[in-house]
């Protein structure tokens, strides 16, 4: 068995093993849903970190930085800053609300089953949108490292996660995910250390040199599927049918192509070739991104405000014993995430020098996995790659578990009846749909799809939570209208982007990063309709505000 397969097997077995340990402790429906609220802050913070660091963090960020340069650094910054916003505006009150899920919160705050149902639909939609790239990432990783077909990795992750979640619910997910945070941090930092040493041993070449990416040595590129590339300079390559001259312009390549040392890397047509200077400079539109200033601000808005609305993030807060613990947990999470996110960009930058062929194949999300073989090689390279594969699978498994727990939790409460057996059935349902989507959909960069899920959360649950927690004037009709408009606009943008409706100019930029217009619109609609329906302000709003904000130390009767 290759080290990569052994690493995957080990992660899967540990995940199932720790899950089984948790299973012995899970006895009631409450155990399944929120671990009976008995999880300590460090465990809980590690679990949140483990759950949050998804395929997008482990592979996607490096891939985006590799292809599109400095502007992509906003992704990890936004992923962490989103937690700060969550801490500032929702962490403690959300915990004190005492609800299990966002739909529970909506119902408790507004007393409306309509808003509850809308929130349930959105939880499932965001959960599924976020699950698709996780499963695709698994397929990509398994293919990049073992040559298995793409569906194999996606099916593997879907099955393991479903068995684990259906078996143990959140209690086991907490143990599994806490373990997986530390595994991911190890898996990304240890190879990074060796890669930096190798880079220094190589004379520390400029990571953003004046030239664009070149093949440093004779490189054989195997293409599983034909790609259309832009050739920038005349080059003679070797193919299975003999020598072939590539002239500047668009051309189609397939099979195995051998490029001579020192030749410029032709880029796949969706990525524009950029020099090191352009790549390293923000707002330069490196890689062919249009309207970079707009895209940056829209991304900032989506990630800063979207984190609080992610279903798998929210459900974690209910496992804190009280509001103060929820805050402290969030603070620990900020530290854990900030440590992790120092590293992915490094892989992206090193990849420009040492793994430029992925710009040709277009599999930019694999750059993290490609570096150990390219820079270290030998047995050590194999072992480092296996470690990265283990980390990547930990990322797919933990995020998928968290999403599955919350999606299934909502399905079981709002569609089925709410017993342990139904929770198991709901888990299967919650996993099958995104699996089918992942197998059917064309592959966009992982980071980009996850960005769309953030935009959708920011356009729906962010206004619902922020206004619900801080503004007495929010009414059920206002919340419902805001959810419908925000959810509708962002869903239209997601479908437009995934479907490739437009691919150039402002319309494409606006659809690819919808948060800048959909979030303000959702807020405006929610506030406007609430003001117009003032007579519908819940009569018990004072009581709710007291519950959300009064410290537990007062010992008020809390009802739940």
């Amino acid at each position, binding site marked *: 068995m290759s080290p990569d397969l052994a690493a995957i097997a080990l992660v899967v077995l540990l995940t199932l093993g720790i899950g089984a340990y948790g299973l012995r402790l899970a006895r009631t429906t409450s155990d399944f849903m929120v671990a009976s609220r008995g999880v300590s802050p460090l465990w809980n913070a590690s679990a949140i970190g483990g759950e949050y660091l998804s395929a997008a963090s482990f592979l996607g960020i490096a891939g985006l930085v590799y292809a599109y340069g400095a502007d992509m650094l906003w992704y990890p910054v936004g992923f962490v800053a989103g*937690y700060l916003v969550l801490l500032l505006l929702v962490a403690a009150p959300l915990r004190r609300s005492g609800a299990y899920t966002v739909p529970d919160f909506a119902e408790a705050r507004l007393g409306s089953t309509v808003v509850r149902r809308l929130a349930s639909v959105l939880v499932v939609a965001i959960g599924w949108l976020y699950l698709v790239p996780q499963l695709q990432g698994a397929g990509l990783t398994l293919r990049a490292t073992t040559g298995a077909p793409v569906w194999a990795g996606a099916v593997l992750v879907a099955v393991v996660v479903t068995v684990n979640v259906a078996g143990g619910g959140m209690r086991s997910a907490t143990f599994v995910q806490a373990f997986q945070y530390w595994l991911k941090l190890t898996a990304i930092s240890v190879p990074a250390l060796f890669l930096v040493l190798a880079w220094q041993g190589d004379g520390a070449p400029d990571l953003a040199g004046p030239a664009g990416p070149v093949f440093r040595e004779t490189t054989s590129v195997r293409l599983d599927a034909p790609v259309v590339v832009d050739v920038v300079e005349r080059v003679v390559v070797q193919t299975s049918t003999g020598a072939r001259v590539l002239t500047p312009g668009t051309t189609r390549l397939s099979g195995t192509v051998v490029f001579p040392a020192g030749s410029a890397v032709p880029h796949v047509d969706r990525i524009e070739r950029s020099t090191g*200077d352009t790549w390293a400079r923000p707002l330069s539109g490196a890689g062919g991104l249009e309207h970079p200033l707009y895209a940056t601000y829209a991304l900032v808005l989506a990630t800063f405000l979207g984190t609080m609305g992610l279903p798998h993030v929210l459900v974690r807060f209910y496992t804190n014993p009280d509001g103060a613990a929820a805050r402290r947990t969030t*603070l620990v999470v900020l530290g854990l995430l900030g440590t992790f996110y120092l590293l992915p960009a490094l892989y992206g930058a090193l990849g420009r020098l040492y793994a430029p062929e992925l710009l040709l194949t277009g599999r930019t999300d694999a750059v993290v996995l490609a570096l150990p073989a390219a820079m270290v090689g030998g047995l050590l390279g194999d072992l480092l790659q296996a470690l990265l594969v283990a980390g990547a699978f930990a990322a797919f498994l933990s995020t998928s578990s968290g999403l599955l727990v919350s999606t299934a939790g909502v399905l079981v409460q709002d569609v089925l009846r709410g017993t342990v057996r139904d929770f198991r059935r709901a888990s299967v349902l919650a996993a099958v749909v995104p699996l089918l989507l992942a197998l059917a959909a064309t592959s966009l960069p992982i980071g980009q799809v996850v960005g769309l899920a953030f935009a959708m959360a920011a356009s729906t649950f962010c206004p619902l939570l922020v206004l619900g927690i801080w503004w007495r004037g929010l009414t059920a009709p206002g919340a419902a209208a805001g959810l419908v408009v925000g959810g509708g606009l962002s869903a239209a943008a997601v479908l437009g982007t995934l479907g490739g409706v437009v691919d150039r100019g402002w319309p494409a930029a606006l659809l690819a990063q919808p948060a800048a217009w959909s979030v303000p619109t959702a807020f405006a609609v929610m506030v406007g309709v609430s003001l117009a329906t003032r007579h519908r302000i819940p009569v018990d709003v004072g009581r709710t*505000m007291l519950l959300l904000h009064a410290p537990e130390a007062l010992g*008020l009767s809390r009802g739940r």
Partner: protein
Amino acid sequence: MTDVPRRVAVTSPRTRAVRRPPGRQALTALDEQDVVGDLLIRSLVRAQLVLGLRLAAVFGILLGGLPLLFAVAPQTRDAQVLGIALPWLVLGGAVYPALWAGGWLYVRLAERNERDFVDLVERS
């Protein structure tokens, strides 16, 4: 019930403190949602909201101002600090400790607001 003022015993605060368990009145006011209770909880909500929004504004201006800075002062895109390009130094590293520090400050101040609130309730 009746318009005749009831007779009340005028006593010193010291005596009252002995006779009543501390904090009952305000706690009851909170629990029963009367005017005083409503004012109390509104003051806490306002204090916490102002705190959260202030810190959010600080980070919104610092972080949100960066793309604008890069846009209006293009030389900042290429500036080197300690041999590293400024945008990479800030976005790739410095921002994370800053975000954590912001969170730490918030937790301290928010808990202080809550302690003050509990003190206020228990003293009255």
